[in-house]
Every structure is written in structure tokens, then in C-alpha cells.
């Protein structure tokens, strides 16, 4: 499509009564639109059916009372689920757990990932081998990672980590049985699995930095630290923020690894918002309230990501 009706040469496609050049152009454009719509239609419908519809249905469920345990009470409740949510201490606790989990995993991933990227950048040989090894955890399923850590690494007395701890004279710890240690454990597991992602992205963007800037800086006798904070960091800032955004969205909605490692326990120590919503919906069978929790999590994720995007555009 040329997009310009005048430019399309009129041939006698219109039959006995050929339309004017303008009409023909409009007709052709309309046809093309229809054709495009027909091509796009199935995919679009599939997308609506699989993403948009469930989303609106979730919101619809969240304004209902839908307890399978008490079907006789079910019905429309308006904002009741949301009011209940605001006064639910376990909601605030799980929100707090979500924020602790998200902030610490994202910060750790960026810091460790950047450190590794800087170190590897200087490597003359074996860089690609290192990259392959580093990427391995990312390709594992989080559920598998959870099971491996739970059974091989953290089991008191028998796990690798606990064994190392005992050998180092730190004694045996019940890594997943103590509230604080359990939180630290799930943070470490997530960081272990996903740091390679940050590492790869930052390494790529570091490798693309122009050498002449650094040369100029060296001539001006800028120290290593100055070169890092004044040149490297500002230049890779977009990459860092991109990593932060992507990892934040994933950390806020993390599920599988925590579910398999602690199931939110001990007690509710590692119960992030997503797990709480799952438990409400599928263990307690309070689908309405569970949906309200899921909507709250969705709003939170959108708000935080939006903020980060604004930050990215800020400079």
C-alpha cells in the first residue's frame, strides 16, 4: 500500500463503471484494511480470549463473594473484598514480604551481575566458556531449582550449605525452619538463579561502550573509580534500569521457587503476596477474596513498573 490514493494508477478493475482515481484509492485502502483485519483477527481474538478476558473476569470475580466453602453466601459485594483487604494484617505482612523479597533480590542481582560483568569483561581467555556456565541456572525451571535447594543444599545436617557451615565452624542451622533464615534462603535462591540474566545484559552493554571516552579520561588523569562512576555508570544506565524493571516485575510475581522451597513458611515468614493470593483462592477456596489480592498485586506491579519507566525517561 502506498498510502497515497493519488499515486495509485487507475486500471479498469472496477468493471463497467470505473470509480474515479480518488474513489478507487479509498476503496483499495478499505479493502486492504479489511484484509489486514481478517489476517489479524484470529490472533487478536485468541489474545483477547486468553489474556484480556481472564483479566476482566478476575476483576469481576474480585467484586463478588465467591466462597466454595459457603456457597449459600455467594453474590455481588462491590468493594467489600477490597475493604477487607485493607484491614487484613496478613495482606500487609505479605505485601511487606513481597517488597523485602523484591528489593533485595533486584539489588543483589544488579550489584553482583554488574560486578561479574566488569570482571569478565577484562578476561582475555575463556570468556565465552564462563558465559555458558553462568547462564545455566537461568534455563532451569524455578520449581526444579526450588527442589534442588530444598533437598540438596539446605537440609540440616545433610545439605551442602549446612555441611559447609558445620565445617566452617558455624554450626548447623535449620535454614528453612527459622523465619529470618528462611527469608534469606529464598532471596539467595532467586538471586542465584537470575543474576546471570543481569550479568549477560550488562556485559553486552559494557562491551558496546566506546573506547575513546576512556582514552580521553585517562589522558585527563581520571582515576579508575572516577571512570566507573562518571563514564561507565551513566552510559549503561538505560541497561541497568531495563534490568531493574524486568527483574522487579518477575520478583513481584515470583511463585514456583518459594512454593517448592518453603510453601510460604515457616508460618507465614516467606509468604509473599502472590503466595497469599494462591492460598486464599486454591487452598481456602475463597475465590473472590483471592481475586482481590491478585488485582492488588497487579496494580502494585503496574505502579512500580510505571514509576521505573518514568525514571528511565527522566534523563
Amino acid at each position, binding site marked *: 500500500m502506498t498510502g497515497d490514493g493519488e499515486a495509485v494508477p487507475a486500471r479498469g478493475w472496477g468493471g463497467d463503471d470505473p470509480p474515479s482515481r480518488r474513489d478507487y484509492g479509498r476503496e483499495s485502502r478499505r479493502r486492504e484494511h479489511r484484509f489486514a483485519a481478517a489476517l489479524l483477527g484470529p490472533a487478536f481474538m485468541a489474545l483477547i480470549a486468553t489474556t484480556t478476558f481472564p483479566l476482566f473476569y478476575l476483576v469481576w470475580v474480585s467484586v463478588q463473594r465467591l*466462597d*466454595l*466453602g*459457603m*456457597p*449459600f453466601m455467594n453474590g455481588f459485594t462491590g468493594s467489600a473484598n477490597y475493604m*477487607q483487604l485493607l484491614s487484613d*494484617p*496478613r495482606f500487609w505482612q505479605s505485601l511487606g514480604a513481597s517488597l523485602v523479597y523484591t528489593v533485595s533480590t533486584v539489588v543483589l542481582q544488579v550489584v553482583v551481575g554488574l560486578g561479574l560483568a566488569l570482571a569478565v569483561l577484562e578476561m582475555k581467555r575463556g570468556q565465552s566458556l564462563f558465559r555458558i556456565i553462568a547462564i545455566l541456572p537461568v534455563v532451569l525451571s524455578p520449581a526444579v531449582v526450588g527442589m534442588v535447594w530444598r533437598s540438596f543444599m539446605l*537440609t*540440616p*545436617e545433610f545439605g551442602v550449605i549446612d555441611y559447609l557451615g558445620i565445617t566452617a565452624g558455624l554450626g*548447623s542451622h*535449620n535454614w*528453612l*525452619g*527459622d*523465619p529470618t533464615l528462611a527469608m534469606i534462603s529464598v532471596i539467595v535462591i532467586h538471586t542465584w538463579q537470575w543474576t546471570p540474566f543481569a550479568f549477560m545484559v550488562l556485559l553486552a552493554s559494557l562491551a558496546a561502550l566506546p573506547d575513546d571516552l576512556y582514552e580521553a579520561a585517562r589522558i585527563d588523569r581520571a582515576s579508575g573509580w572516577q571512570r566507573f562512576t562518571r563514564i561507565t555508570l551513566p552510559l549503561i544506565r538505560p541497561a541497568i534500569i531495563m534490568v531493574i524493571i524486568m527483574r522487579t516485575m518477575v520478583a513481584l510475581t515470583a511463585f514456583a521457587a518459594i512454593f517448592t522451597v518453603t*510453601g510460604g*513458611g*515457616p*508460618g*507465614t*515468614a516467606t509468604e509473599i503476596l502472590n503466595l497469599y493470593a494462591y*492460598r486464599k483462592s*486454591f*487452598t*481456602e*477456596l*475463597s475465590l473472590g477474596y483471592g481475586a482481590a489480592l491478585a488485582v492488588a498485586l497487579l496494580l502494585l506491579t503496574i505502579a512500580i513498573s510505571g514509576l521505573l519507566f518514568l525514571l528511565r525517561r527522566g534523563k
Partner: protein
Amino acid sequence: MDNSFFNRRSVLRGMAGSTALLAMPGLARRAMAQGAELGPYQQAKIDWRQAEGETITVAVIPAAYFENLITLAPQFEELTGVKLRFEKVPPAQIRQKAVLDLTSGTGTYATHAADPMYYALYQANGWVDPLDDYLNDASLTDKDWFRPDDIVPAWTAANTIDGKLYGIPYDGEVTLQVLRKDLYEAKGLAPAEDLDGFVANAKAVHDPDNRIWGTALRGLAGAGQNVYIYSSLFRAFGGDWLPGGNLTVNGPEAEAALAWYVQTMKDYAPAAAQGWNWPDIADAFSQGTVASYIDAHSSASVINTPDKSQVIGKIAYARWPKGPSGKRVSSIWNWGLPINAKLSDKAKKATWLFIQWAASPETQARTSYLFSGPTKRSGVNRLSLWEQPEYVQTVSGFGDNFVEATLTALKEDTDVDWRPRVPQWPGIGDAVATAIASALAGQATPKSALDAAQAQVTKMMQ
């Protein structure tokens, strides 16, 4: 059994069994099934072929007692002309999958291995049929042959809501003390009569420096895990779930019961037991690191696995210790089989025939002591079988006092109000499980944990 993990051994065994069966030439199998095999069933005065041509799907858990049943399925198909499809769902997921199927109303599972705590929920939603109509219909059930009164009364009571039966028990269990006879004898100890005695015994044999811990109880959070043990304690301390009709999970009895649980676990159980379910406890016991535990009698088959267990021949059993209220409270757990209300009438008939076949004295015997495979069931649903010499001989190999303790517990220690049978149970159970777990982890005191659970439960019941 209220288990939450794949029992790998039982799955492997079942797989081996079914492979062997498949390897047999189909003709031979059919001939075998047609012969004397069907005789005992044909004595029932009903038309077994009245639902011929139907296909029904049955969801079970991958445990030996169901694997044995699956092995016998060709006999049922031969008898009735109804085709069976089995779907194996791990115990941790079967409740959710069943609820999902029942809410969607698609009638995928004609019947499934059901948690007795869920019948109130099923009944409130009208998801399953009351079975009395099937039992009392002479064209569907020959009562003289099926003998429903012979089924363990505590289990049928557990599956009854408002006087109506919703699931026929297929396999069940009681909870018992499981003890290391040799360690107890070395210290001159007798099986505990009450909870104080149990702790005193645990203290006497507790020797963590030599890798022997006094006891272990389920610590893993879950309505079917730590709540399973806690409920018996709660009742033994004199607790009542529904005083004055209000569901109550806190109060002095609850606090005392939970405090006992926490203290016993802290003093005499390995730290990791906080995250253990029964298979983990049974494994630790098999390795000789735990000197006693209280759990389902059916874990006996795990601790008697020849190549895995180092304590075979050193095991003794005893009933639950008495609590301060003087009661011994055993679990009334059983896997029952309900009928999905969304099925067509003919499919319902087919499903009932299957349930009747599976729960009948003949099939119960054929899946236990008459079974040709290596695993014999120990949770048969018939009191009469427990008195049958062949059966008694088969299961008494599990250790001292096994048959006697189990049978006494089945008859005397069961308590229908062991756990509150209300439709909101899944939520209540989860709240109580979380409270127990946080108390065990030291995150909260028993009182504050239970009060928090009560606040949640009160909100749920509104």
C-alpha cells in the same frame, strides 16, 4: 493415608506390577479373568452388566493400595462391561483437581479418592450424590453380599453429613505409636499410656550425639499434615472444635495441646522435623535415627521395606497415649469414593458398580493378603478381614502388637469429631496449619498463633 508426597517405592512397585501384567498375553489374561475369578462376584443378586458400554474415569493417588486395585481392574471390566480409566494424581494435588472438576461441572472424574474432610464442602455445593439411594436400591446393591455394615463404622461416620453417606471408604488408617522395641527394652521402658509417659520415654531414649532422637511428629504445614497430628492432641487435651456451634480453634485446651506439641518437637525431635511429613519421619525411623513416632498405622509398610529399612524386627506398636482428658484420639482418615452428581444416570450406575466392586469384601481381600504382588494392603475397610487368620498373619509381620493395637484403635479410639466437619474446612485447616507451623518455628507463641488463626476463622465463617 493422608500423605503428601509421592511414595516412590509404591509407584515403582505399581509400575512393575502393571508392566508384568501388560507383558502377559492378552488372551491368557482374559481367560484367567473369565474363570473362577468372577465367581464370588456373580453370587451377588444384581445385574452387573446393567451399565455395559460405559466408560468412567477414576482419580486415585499413586499409592500401593490403589495400584493393587488398578491391577485387578480387568476383572471388573470383564464382569460389568464398563471400561475404567484411572488417573493418578499425587495426594497434594488431588483435592484441588477434584474441586476444580466438581466446580466446572464437567463430570470428568466419575469418582475420586476423596478426603473425608471435604464431604461437607461437596455436600454444601451439591457436587456429589448421597449414596444411601444406591445402597438401598435392590437392583443396584445386594446388601447381603456387599455387607455395608461390615465396613469400619468410624470411617463411614466420617463420610456421613447430616445423616447421609457420601463416600464409601476404600482404604483407611488409624494413628498409632510406633516404637523401637530394642531401644525401649534396653532402657526397660514400656509403651506409653499417656502423653506424659510418651515424653518421658522419648527423653529416656533421646541421644542426639549418637544420632538417635527421642521422637518425631509431622511438622510440615498443611491441613493434612501437621493438623493431622494436632487434631488428635487437641481432642485428647479436651478441646472441642464447635462449642455452642461456633467454630473455635483457640482457648486453653488448644494452647495446652499446641504447647505440648511445640515443646516435644523442640526437645526430642530433629530440627528438620519441622518440615517433615510422614514419609520423611518413616524414612528417618527406618534409618534408626528416630526412636518413636505417632502416625498412621499404614506407614508400617514403609518402615518394613526390606532393602531400605534397618529396623525390621525391632518395631513395636501401641495405641495413642491418653491425653489429660483421658481420651485417646485416633485419626479417622480414609480414602472414600463418592459419585459425581453431574454424571448421566447410566454413568452413575456404572460408577456405583465400580465402588461396590472396589469396596466389597472380595476385592478388599484380593488387594490385600490374596494379592500376588509384593505389597499387601494394611488399610482394608472390613472389620471382618481384620479377624481373618490369613490377613492377620500377613500384616502381623509388621511388628509386635500391630494387629491388636490397630484393631483396638479402630474400635475404641476413633472420634467422629476429630476434626470439624464443616464446608469451610479447607480454609480453617490452612489457618490452623499456619498457626502450628509458626509456633513450631518459634515465630509466635502458641497462644498468639492460635488467636491469629481464630481471627481468620471468625472472618471466614461470617
